[in-house]
């Protein structure tokens, strides 16, 4: 008798569960797919972007989610895939997202992935004959200049490096007029690094009176830099600009210390203004200056850095862009009044694209980010200097004195 009662009770609970199921399945979900490098030398960028996206989604969901066209609230679901900084992997991932129920993607890490990837998207939304993918991508990290021009479905919230370094060299001309000569170093096999010197710093430095006395290069996976640093020593420039990511940046500055190469100033690539650099070579980069679009300089930036840290990531100019992208997408989705239903997915993607394209400015962690006609961002920035194992803000254009 007792057993029968237990059995009946269990059946009743199971039935109650079934009855409740349709109610919970009615909860709509907005899927945002993150993708970037989680293996290889730039793995930390993918790890940090994922942490930032998950932190942003957690915050949105804690506040109830995203409001849809019919007034119902949808939860945000963030996934993150590894494209290994390989173009074919990135393209395969986005093709998969486009054929699934993902609304929009955030990524990739590497410009050499972004460039061919944007090439498979529909170029102009008005061109009905173009069979390219009609899927919005909102890039957080890949920074090579001008990439969003490739497709009207591509948007970026990345630093505008030509503007940043232009401002830096202008600042140096005013504050450090004794700096007259510069030498560059770059990772010759990595698009961002190569462009960071060739198309950005090498262009900006002479504009503000610095004479380029030479340049050296190495590969992204190199571990010895004796030959390159000897050349630096021979040229003895006032400034050494190292357009490289933390791994080789640290290798180079350690070799510089060994060979006694002490320029008056080291300038770094935006991507190196991270804690990875400090963990690798804080002593050797002491005094180096880098323009960046993120530093924990205000209460909100500090709070977000804490939330990203809780997700086991590090807040830097790239990962905080991933945070901003998810927050921007929330407001865009709400403003565009999307339905969030399987049958409206294609229309919803188009609404998201159009709403992103219509943005004139967005709120970023350092202030207002302006959006350009070609779907790029002009973000507020600061200059940070390596000091005692931390990146310290040495110049904030909003506080000139």
């Amino acid at each position, binding site marked *: 008798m007792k057993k029968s009662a237990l059995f009946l009770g269990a059946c009743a609970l199971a039935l109650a569960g079934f009855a409740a199921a349709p109610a919970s399945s009615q909860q709509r979900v907005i899927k945002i797919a993150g993708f970037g490098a*989680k*293996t*290889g*030398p730039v*793995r*930390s960028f993918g*790890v940090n972007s994922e942490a930032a996206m998950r932190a942003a989604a957690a915050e949105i969901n804690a506040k109830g989610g995203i409001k849809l066209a019919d007034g119902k609230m949808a939860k945000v679901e963030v996934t993150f895939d590894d494209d290994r900084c390989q173009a074919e992997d990135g393209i395969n991932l986005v093709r998969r997202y486009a054929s699934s129920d993902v609304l929009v993607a955030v990524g990739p890490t590497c410009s050499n992935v972004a460039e061919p990837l944007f090439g498979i998207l529909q170029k102009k939304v008005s061109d009905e004959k173009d069979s390219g993918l009609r899927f919005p991508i909102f890039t957080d990290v890949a920074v090579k200049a001008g990439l969003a021009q490739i497709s009207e479905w591509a948007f970026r919230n990345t630093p505008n490096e030509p503007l940043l370094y232009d401002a830096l060299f202008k600042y140096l001309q005013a504050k450090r007029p004794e700096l007259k000569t510069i030498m560059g170093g770059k990772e*010759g*096999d990595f698009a961002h690094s190569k462009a960071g010197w060739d198309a950005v710093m090498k262009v900006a430095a002479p504009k503000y009176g610095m004479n380029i006395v030479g340049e*050296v*290069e*190495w*590969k992204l*996976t*190199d*571990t*010895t830099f*004796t*030959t*390159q640093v*000897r*050349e630096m020593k021979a040229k003895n420039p006032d400034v050494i600009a190292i357009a490289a990511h*933390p*791994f080789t940046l*640290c*290798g180079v500055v*350690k070799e510089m*210390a*060994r*060979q*006694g190469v002490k320029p008056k100033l080291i300038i770094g690539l935006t991507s190196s203004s991270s804690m*990875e650099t400090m*963990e*690798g*070579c804080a002593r050797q980069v002491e005094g180096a200056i880098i323009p960046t679009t993120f530093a924990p300089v205000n209460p909100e930036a500090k709070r977000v850095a804490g939330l990203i840290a809780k997700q086991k990531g590090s807040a830097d100019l790239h990962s905080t862009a991933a945070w901003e992208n998810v927050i921007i997408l929330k407001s865009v989705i709400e403003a565009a009044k999307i339905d969030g239903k399987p049958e409206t997915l294609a229309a919803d993607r188009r609404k998201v694209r159009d709403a992103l394209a219509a943005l004139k400015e967005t709120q970023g962690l350092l202030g207002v980010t302006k959006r350009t006609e070609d779907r790029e961002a002009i973000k507020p920035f600061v200059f940070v200097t390596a000091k005692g194992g931390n990146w310290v803000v040495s110049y904030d254009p909003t506080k000139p004195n």
Partner: protein
Amino acid sequence: MVLVQAIIDGILVGTTYALIGIGFTLIFGVMHKLNLAFAAASIAGAFASLVAWQHFKDLPVPLVFLISAAAAGVLGYLIYLTCFRFIPLKSPLATLMATVGMLIFLEEIVTHVSDGKAQNYPGMLPDARWTLGPLDIRVDYILVFAISVAAMLLLLALLYRTRLGIATRAVAQQPVAAQLCGISLDRTNAATFVMSGVLGGLAGAMIGSSAELLSNLLPLQLTVKGLIVTVIGGLGSIPGAIVAGLLVGAVEKGVETWSVLARDLCVMLLIFVFLVAKPAGIFGKLNVRD
């Protein structure tokens, strides 16, 4: 003078390539099998020593090197057990694929231990330099050279002056006859894997130490370098691996003064030159086995 300086650097660093090449060649000489996981085990050994260095602060560098050598030796034995001992040796692809699997497995472990980031590794006299006229030589490179040469001499003494060495050479030349003489193939093969592992661990530690960084990207790079050295030196030839290691180091650094991007191309070109002009390598002999 820049070229001379670069070639000297290359020769000094090339001794670590020679050690890796010896590791490959030792195993090939004894078993006529390639162990593609060898370089990965060498770097994994170095990472094990890194973990020890991070855990027990202020460990002296020589002890860190010894830990690396010991850990890589243990890994060498484990590779023997998992990829060779119980796998039919008659199927040449079986052991090769097993070691490829082990290479990927070890690389993944290293990536997870390091969180995919390069880690600081203790350097040997990082700021010491030796100036000889116009030449400026890093003292730690000289130490790398000296330690590598000492390790090679020790290995040669082991192979030519001890019972284990005689057994190893006997197994390499005539495995059946060696067995008939009472030499245990299993034990000799295992000892060879441990010996080569110790050498590899030492090389891994010195590569990390000279860069003061240990990267999870090194296993694959070092595997390629080790194979290049082994092919150029002649499969199974220890003197060949030594000369080829120095040659590859010198060519790499020499070409680097002209073009970094052409560096690896030139090393690969060197392989083609040897494969066409001297397919058995510098000191190797074709069809040396009965």
